[in-house]
């Protein structure tokens, strides 16, 4: 196990270095750069822009900028946002709660409902329920979240007035109930897509498990159908879900770009879009490294958990 972890750790470091180099180059290849937004500002002359570029160190050769950034990162300094002057980790810290709240609740909804739909669809294959679930999943996957969100706002906020039209809470009211009230629509809209993904995976994974020899053995032994499903099928069907959960973990912390925009949710997804829009290099690079680390960690955790719960798998 220790040897495995050490090997994975070294692999991850190499991967992070590669990701950071590619990210840095791609970011700098985008035409314009952080000062382009001032190009049309009347009264900001090329001299003003050149001065700012020099002050921010943007006129140095790219490799110098990269090594400077990487060296500071190694010392724990993630850099400072061009946009609001705060350290990158502070900026990320300020947005992570909103995302965790939204993604956390939508993931709980999605996993619970998706797993149930998947199992029921598999055990009642080709039933009316299965067809409705399959078609429903296809619809949920193919309709843009943006549209879903706007329709939800139109119906439940503007027409019926049951739910707020977005935002994380009403300004001046920080009660838990208020947060929950605001959480309903975005988490459900976001969960719709995830339910579709989870239910499809769970369905095929359950079907796989149902065709295994040990299931036939259990049935042959006269174990009740309910017990076969609950004890033998579901447990095994959930194994691939752990890997899926590992892959999905980073998205819980990096946020939902579209949903956060439609529902005015101050999370990481919007931070990423805004930082990209303003070419706020330190924050974009910080978010890139952050999600790369999470992706690597998510996969590693999934591998370990699978090894722990599945006696057939040994880590080496």
């Amino acid at each position: 196990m220790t040897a495995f972890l050490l090997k994975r750790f070294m692999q991850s470091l190499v991967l992070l270095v590669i990701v950071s180099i590619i990210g840095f180059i791609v970011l700098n290849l985008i035409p314009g750069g952080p000062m382009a937004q001032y190009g049309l500002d009347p009264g900001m002359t090329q001299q003003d822009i050149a001065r700012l570029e020099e002050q921010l160190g943007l006129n140095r050769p790219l490799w110098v900028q990269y090594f400077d950034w990487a060296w500071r990162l190694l010392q724990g300094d993630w850099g400072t946002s061009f946009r609001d002057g705060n350290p990158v980790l502070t900026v990320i810290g300020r947005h992570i709660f909103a995302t965790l709240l939204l993604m956390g609740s939508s993931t709980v909804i999605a996993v619970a409902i998706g797993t149930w739909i998947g199992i029921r669809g598999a055990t009642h294959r080709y039933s009316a329920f299965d067809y409705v679930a399959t078609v429903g999943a296809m619809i949920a996957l193919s309709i843009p979240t943006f549209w879903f969100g706007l329709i939800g706002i139109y119906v439940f906020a503007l027409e019926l007035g049951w739910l707020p039209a977005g935002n994380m809470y009403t300004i001046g009211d920080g009660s838990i109930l208020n947060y929950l009230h605001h959480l309903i629509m975005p988490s459900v809209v976001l969960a719709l897509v995830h339910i579709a993904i989870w239910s499809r995976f769970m369905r095929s994974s359950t079907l796989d498990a149902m065709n295994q020899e040990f299931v036939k053995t259990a049935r042959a032994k006269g174990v009740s159908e309910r017990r076969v499903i609950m004890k033998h099928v579901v447990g095994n069907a959930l194994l691939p879900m752990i890997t899926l959960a590992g892959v999905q973990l980073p998205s819980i912390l990096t946020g939902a770009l579209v949903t956060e925009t439609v529902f005015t949710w101050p999370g990481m997804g919007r931070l990423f879009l805004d930082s990209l829009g303003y070419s706020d290099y330190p924050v974009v690079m910080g978010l890139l490294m952050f999600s790369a680390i999470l992706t690597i960690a998510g996969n590693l955790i999934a591998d370990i958990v699978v090894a722990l719960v599945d006696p057939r798998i040994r880590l080496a």
Partner: protein
Amino acid sequence: MTEHDKGNSNYSRRDALRMMAIGGVAGLIAPNLLGKPAFAQTPPANPTGRIVVGLSQEPTSFNPLMVHNEVDEGVYFSIFDALFRIDPQGVIQPNLAVEVPSQENGGISQDGLAWRIRLRDDVRWHDGEPFTAEDVKYTLELIVNPDFRAWRTLGHALLRDITVVSPTEITWRMEEPFAPYMSFLTETFMVPKHILEKEADPNEAAFNQAPIGTGAFKWGQRIAGDHIELVANPDYFGDGPYIEQLVFKYIPDRTVLYTQFQSGDIDLVGLAYIAPDKYAEASALPDRTVELIPAPQFEFILLNMERPQFKELAVREALYAAMDRKMIIDAIYYGVAGLTETFMPQQSFYYNPDLPVQEFNLDRARKLLDDAGWVPGADGIRAKDGVRLAFANTTTAGDHLREQLQQFLQQTFAEIGVEMTISNLPPAVLWGDFWTYSRFDSAIAGTTYLVASDPDVTLRFHSKAIPSQTGGRGSNNSQYSNPEIDALLEEGARTFDPEKRREIYFKVQEIIRRDLPLLPLYARTLVYGRKAGIEGFVANTNTRTESWHAAGWYWA
């Protein structure tokens, strides 16, 4: 629909100037900037309630001297004060200063070089410290500090020998007479010396995240990515504030911004306002006030005057005559835009209303080209001396309205034997070197030509402001060069008397309208919206924000 609300019937510009000339009088009446009619509701005795302003960009830069975007300025105007401010009629009024210095009142010497500003003695910073001339000196010096990431330094770099005469008086000398500096000072917000001087690096000061000013509102808190809360400053030296809390709420999508205006989550729609295609719908909303407000930005086709096709005036005139601008405004912009013949905003004190009015007339366009010797070739495109009357037009790729506009123009230009090809670029590429160094044939852009609402357009039209020629400092991207304009612009920058300046810039507008280095398409109009219960709201597009005077807002 394109009629603009002038909103200044009880207050003429000339009257205001006359008052300014009678030294000091303007200072006494200044707090009543809005010229409230007598029948208006009276504001509450104590600040009450909250107003939430929705913005489609997030304010993130809170040190008003540092590099920032226009969305940050609503926060600056609420927390800070400048020495002067520009009112909705385009007239400069005192703010932290007690009077607007002029050559008549002796505040500015006859040669325009020596300035003397007298300050109010009743202003305190939000932490209780008195505001003095030392703060002004510190602010003006910080801007030109080479280590400081200052926003524009234009004008400020000319200051020499800044001297604090007394806590309420400051003087300086200018390297050269520069009248636009007065306007620049309406956007130069004063920062507290006693706080910033203690900081090792003003770029990284704690102040930048929790600013302290002299304005009507104090810093409350910022929820990053969501909103900024300001609270009433009970010790504000001017009138107001009348609301307890002012909130700037960031709503990243313009459609959602409008939706939250409908749902009532936001009380007032700020930058980037209501989209033109929603204007009709918004006007019908109950309990909402929706207004069309002329903006300082205008949309135009900039012609590269060094291209052989555009050297001849007849060609530029013919192209202008072939633009059906009324049709464009109605068909593409839902009628929410105004016609203009000049770069000068209509609400500017310097707007020349007597310029010749363009008429859409294809026959006249053809005749102009025929008379000038541009003869159609075998392919129907005109040519003269081996030059085909064909050119590329560039604008920001992905801007659907501008793309429709281009297709529309392409068709009408073809009817007079002119070939226009469309070649668009992403904004970051277009507004980079391609624009700066005039690598386009023609380009469609939308911006204001004025810096701080001053009529000085040296950066846009002076022959020394052409970056592609000898690295000129400025943005004369059409490479327009006219000695007559050069001389007028130089005179205008040296002239302090607003009436005299007006004559100069009227003339400038006349010549630009005649020479047509740019073909005006339309003057941008903003759709403002707010809840009907908000009183004291006045638009002022001589500033870049709807929140230029939140001190006067209150709930009826």
